[in-house]
């Protein structure tokens, strides 16, 4: 059961809740693997996606998850050219709420936007990424993938490589993993490491080789190209040279380590093309697991009861 009305992040959620989500995602993944990928579980339930930032991947993942569970999903086309703010946001949500929408999946460029909307609507909210704050479903699918491939999270060393300062994926990964006692290392150029990051319970590195050595998992973050024009990096070439994940650097990991990336990738910047081809690169499975985890969440938050037969 998700205790709070809204799923805003992995920081304020218990391991019991995370366990239950990950457990429910297992049969959901079975459904995805079937020939007929549709169950009537959420028939008659209504949800909407509210994406104030473009993200084809996350949005499609939620839409597909809703479809497989037979929920009705409305996609609200929000103009991305003009900044939507304040009462516009509340108005939009209230309008949909009175039309019967029970759950919003929300992506927004401002940290805290779903928290703000959550206080102003009775509908439930799943945060699909807010500013640089959190992206909890990405965190959950990453944890699902790690657990699936490597077992008990508490025994793992996970290296998060890249622009952690601007990454909501990194924050959700860190919050989720440290709850399980995972050893989390973070590595990036000093200019992309936010202050007091250690207090989140992670080890901080600038030397990529040291950070990768002996890790079970490397989760590579996408580098936004504009970082080089804002005084944070000299060039993408230099970034690739010192922090890019190359085949040579992959050898520093444990022999059976996995390589993850939330996508979409900048090949040749944070990750080299041949690393993507690596047999232990699991990015495609991450995408599938993303649908499974989102199905589990929709099931739990749209009225599916624990113990309900998902099939």
């Amino acid at each position: 059961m998700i205790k709070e009305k809204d799923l805003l992040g992995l920081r304020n959620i218990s391991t019991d809740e995370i366990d239950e989500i990950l457990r429910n995602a297992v049969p959901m993944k079975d459904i995805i693997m079937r020939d007929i990928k549709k169950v009537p579980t959420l028939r008659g339930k209504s949800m909407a996606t509210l994406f104030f930032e473009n993200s084809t991947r996350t949005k499609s993942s939620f839409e597909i998850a809703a479809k497989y569970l037979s929920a009705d999903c409305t996609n609200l086309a929000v103009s991305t050219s003009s900044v939507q703010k304040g009462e516009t946001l509340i108005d939009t949500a209230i309008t949909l709420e009175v039309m019967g929408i029970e759950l919003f999946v929300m992506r927004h460029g401002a940290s805290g936007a779903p928290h703000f909307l959550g206080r102003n609507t009775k509908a439930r909210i799943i945060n699909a990424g807010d500013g640089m704050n959190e992206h909890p479903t990405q965190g959950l699918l990453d944890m699902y993938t790690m657990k699936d491939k490597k077992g008990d999270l508490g025994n793992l060393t996970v290296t998060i490589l890249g622009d952690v300062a601007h990454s909501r994926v990194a924050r959700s990964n860190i919050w989720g993993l440290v709850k399980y006692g995972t050893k989390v290392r973070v590595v990036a150029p000093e200019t992309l490491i936010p202050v007091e990051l250690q207090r989140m319970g992670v080890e901080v590195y600038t030397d990529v080789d040291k950070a990768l050595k002996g890790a079970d998992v490397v989760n590579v973050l996408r580098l936004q190209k504009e970082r080089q024009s804002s005084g944070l990096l000299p060039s993408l070439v230099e970034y690739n040279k010192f922090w890019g994940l190359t085949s040579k650097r992959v050898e520093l990991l444990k022999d059976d380590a996995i390589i993850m990336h939330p996508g979409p990738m900048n090949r040749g910047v944070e990750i080299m093309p041949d690393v993507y081809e690596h047999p232990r690169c699991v990015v495609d499975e991450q995408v599938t697991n993303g649908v499974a985890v989102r199905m589990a969440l929709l099931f739990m938050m749209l009225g599916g009861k624990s113990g309900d037969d998902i099939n």
Partner: protein
Amino acid sequence: MILIKGGHVVDPKNKIDGIMDILVEGETINKIDKNIETKSEYEVVDATNLMVFPGLIDMHVHLREPGFEHKETIQTGLAAAAKGGFTTVACMPNTKPAIDDRTIVESIERKTRGAKVNLKIIGAATKNIDTDQLTEMGDMKEAGIVAISNDGKPVKNAYITRRVLEYAKQFDLILIEHCEDESMANGGFIHEGYYSTILGLKGIPREAEDLIVARDIALVKMTGGKVHIAHISSKNSVDLVREAKKQGLNVTAEVTPQHLVLTDAAVESFDTSTKINPPLRSEEDRQALVEGLIDGTIDMIATDHAPHARWEKEVEYAYAPFGAVGLETAVALINTKLVKTGLITYSQLVEKMANNPGTVFKLGGELKLGNYADITIFDPNKKWTVIPEEFYSMGRNTPFKGWELEGEVVHTIVKGEFAIKDGKVI
């Protein structure tokens, strides 16, 4: 004539701290003594169990007129001031148009006629705030301004600041500086620290403040001008001011109740009333501010009362304007969090909220025979809950909503007349 009887009168500037009576005749204080005899023509105010302070002075309020009357007006702002026990407030010039010449100063003066609270005006240091052109400070001084400031922003650069200080010195005007190096702040909006890191909100490092404090101290040394550091928030800046004072430089400083009481942890709620500039800083900074207040590095408390309309603040955190209202909670917060906890005494409260702003800006702030009878009568034990909907201010943007506070202003007397009587605006 008003006789204030049996109150605990506190005014360290005049070495008063005990049960005394005060007799007000017309606009002025006629007598301060033990057991002044009651006469039938006196209006007697029973101040038993109450504290009697020189009228409080707030050197930093935004009354939003002209230009932003949907946020606050002079009338509502002064009602809020009276309710907060302030008999004098000084308004910042970042209005629309900015208060940057004599005609605007005079138009505001006209609006304050008949007002129950003394409104003092701070003029802009440069034309239209953010420019290279000095304002006609001499002319504005004649029209009544008490200081200059570009608040909301610092004076543009080191060169212009130098010239502002040199020029203002001739008219004995203090520059009240909003210390924020904008290139260092780089669009941030909460303190750069643990909470900016975990919440993914853009930070303003304390060094953004330190850089301008250091710049201005160097320029005070160079020019012999006077700088007053507005809403100091960084522990390093407190050290810089302390050092400057040791050198005998003309540098003073103020701190807000919100920076003394709250830290950046309050931002965790994404409540936009915690979005203020300078931002709420770390616990370490907060402690340094309290220490600086106690040891005299920080001269005074000012509210930086910054009202906004509800619809402006009820938006995503990043899009909300900076500012919180403060007039109606200030003295109760200081009483609850600093006096009742034993960190400061009532004498220090009066120093920081009346004596010192009065002395630095030549605005009275003391209980002296023959002076205007500006008096605040305060019940130090009255408990109340902060309900923004009950404010006289139009601004409801307080980070203290729902807080239980101790201490309430019972009467505010300005020039011998009640602005607040029994807790209500007259």
